[in-house]
């Protein structure tokens, strides 16, 4: 399948006082119809990647593509909806006037703009403030309007940089529902976020970026499975010799052990080995790690490796 967006060995160095390597040999591939989450701490290079993809800033080396084109023309952007981080609007316009003013750039006529604006304002709860100047908007209201603007021209690829920043929990749930609905309609969503619990709920694939470097990429299930395991309570403590004879078994406490693997076949083999030692298994429980565990572990091991 042709990727919607992606990059190969992409590097971006911000020149000037004290050069900063924002992206370092970064490669990812976003497939059509998926919700892709790019995770990373502040300053990891997430926004830099989006800006390169949209032609807002230039890259230093490597390549990137948008809708299959390695040198995307400006018109490709008619297929992209973008919500920037800390979005702001020209303050002289009301919310509705902002939508109308931007619609012209996408070649939308007045009737289509009015209809689409109405639909989006209904969906995002913006009707009550539709005729207020954006100057008076709270951060959450700006974010909602930003999302409405990003969806205005019904784009195929929606790029959202911290979309739920400043939005209350009810609003976050609404946005999740909207994004899931968009995916079901075949749209591709690229999400930059550091709110891992939310990303875990909706994304199909993620990439973890740290100090410009790609540390991990894959589906949430694949990645969390690697750090998942089984916790066991045994009838007695194993001797050092017994413990060493069973691969992937790790002592976690008094008579407690952890099997660092999530495959059933491996688990059963381990149980056979324990039973041979004439030890009773009192309890066995799958401990699935979440995205936050994976993220922290990945970042920590990278930091540790560097030290």
């Amino acid at each position, binding site marked *: 399948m042709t990727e919607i967006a992606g990059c190969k060995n992409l590097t971006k160095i911000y020149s000037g006082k004290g050069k900063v390597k924002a992206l370092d040999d970064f490669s990812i591939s976003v497939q059509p119809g998926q919700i892709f989450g790019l995770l990373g701490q502040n300053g990891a290079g997430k926004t830099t990647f989006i*800006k390169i993809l*949209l*032609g*807002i800033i230039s890259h230093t080396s490597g390549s990137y593509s948008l809708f299959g084109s390695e040198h995307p023309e*400006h*018109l*490709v*952007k*008619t297929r*992209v909806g*973008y919500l*920037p*981080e*800390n*979005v*702001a*609007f*020209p*303050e*002289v*316009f009301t919310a509705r*006037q902002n939508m109308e*003013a*931007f619609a*012209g*750039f*996408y*070649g939308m006529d007045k009737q289509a703009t009015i209809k689409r604006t109405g639909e989006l304002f209904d969906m995002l709860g913006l009707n009550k403030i539709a005729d207020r100047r954006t100057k008076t908007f709270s951060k959450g209201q700006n974010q909602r309007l930003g999302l409405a*603007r990003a969806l205005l021209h019904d784009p195929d690829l929606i790029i959202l940089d911290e979309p739920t920043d400043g939005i209350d929990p009810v609003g976050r749930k609404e946005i999740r529902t909207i994004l899931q609905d968009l995916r079901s309609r075949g749209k591709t969503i690229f999400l930059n976020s550091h709110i891992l619990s939310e990303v875990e709920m909706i994304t199909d694939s993620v990439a973890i970026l740290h100090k410009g470097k790609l540390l991990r990429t894959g589906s949430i299930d694949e990645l969390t499975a690697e750090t998942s395991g089984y916790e066991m309570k045994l009838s007695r403590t194993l001797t050092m010799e017994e413990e060493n004879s069973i691969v992937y078994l790790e002592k976690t406490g008094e008579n407690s052990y952890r099997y660092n693997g999530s495959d059933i076949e491996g688990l059963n083999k381990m149980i056979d080995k324990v039973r041979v030692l004439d030890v009773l298994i009192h309890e066995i429980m799958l401990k699935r790690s979440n995205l936050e565990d994976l993220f922290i572990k990945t970042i920590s091991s990278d930091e540790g490796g560097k030290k």
Partner: protein
Amino acid sequence: MKGLTQSIVFFFKHIYRSKSFWVTVGGIVVMFLLTWGISASVFNNIPPGTKEGKIIATYDLTSINLLNGMAQLMVYIGLFAVAINVNSVVKRGVLDLFLSLPVRRWELLTGAFIAGILFELVVLAIVISGSWLIHSSVFGIFYGENLHWGLLNLLGFVVMFHLVLFLSFGFRSPIAGLLVAIAYAVVVSSILFVARELTMTSGNAVLRETVNTLYWILPKSAEFANPFFMSSQNLPEGHILKLVLSTIFFIFTVFGLTIIVFEKKDH
């Protein structure tokens, strides 16, 4: 070209919806009141029995000074209105929205430039035509040549200021704006001004006319200071003082404008 048209429409709407638009409208009203006050005062001071030729000469002189002065003040008001508008667009978050649009960067920049100039020209056309009409009505004399001259003369100033302002916008730096202003004022404008002064009395008609034509075609920062600093052209030292003062005035105006554009903004 569709992107350029959209940019012009967007920025024109942006100016029209802003508070500075109403400040400009207020400025126009004040200019008309001032014109009426000055014209009426001059007309009422003409002694009874003055010959018609002298009345026409008074009308002519007042007309030139009025149109020049009013319109130049309006150029400033309009320029600040445009600068304040550009300022609200180059904020972080807003700028990213613009740059993600399916429009080339030069189309956005040129669109903003053309919208600003169009706004200024509309404002100036109203101020000059209105002032001319008020002044002419007070005197009961309607000389179309003065109106024609007033409109043409100010076109250059509008283009010059916008050019410098938007060059600095393109470089995203008030310092760049300052440097462009210095370059223009010191190099282009001053050379033109001095060349015209030197060749004004030259016997070489071709040279004199060429320099004079260039002087009137190209926008001149020096000329801009006319009603503010040196109305007397008689003293030889007045020319130099006018040149120095107007150059400083021009540079600081452009620098001020670019600071308004870029103040407190994270780019």
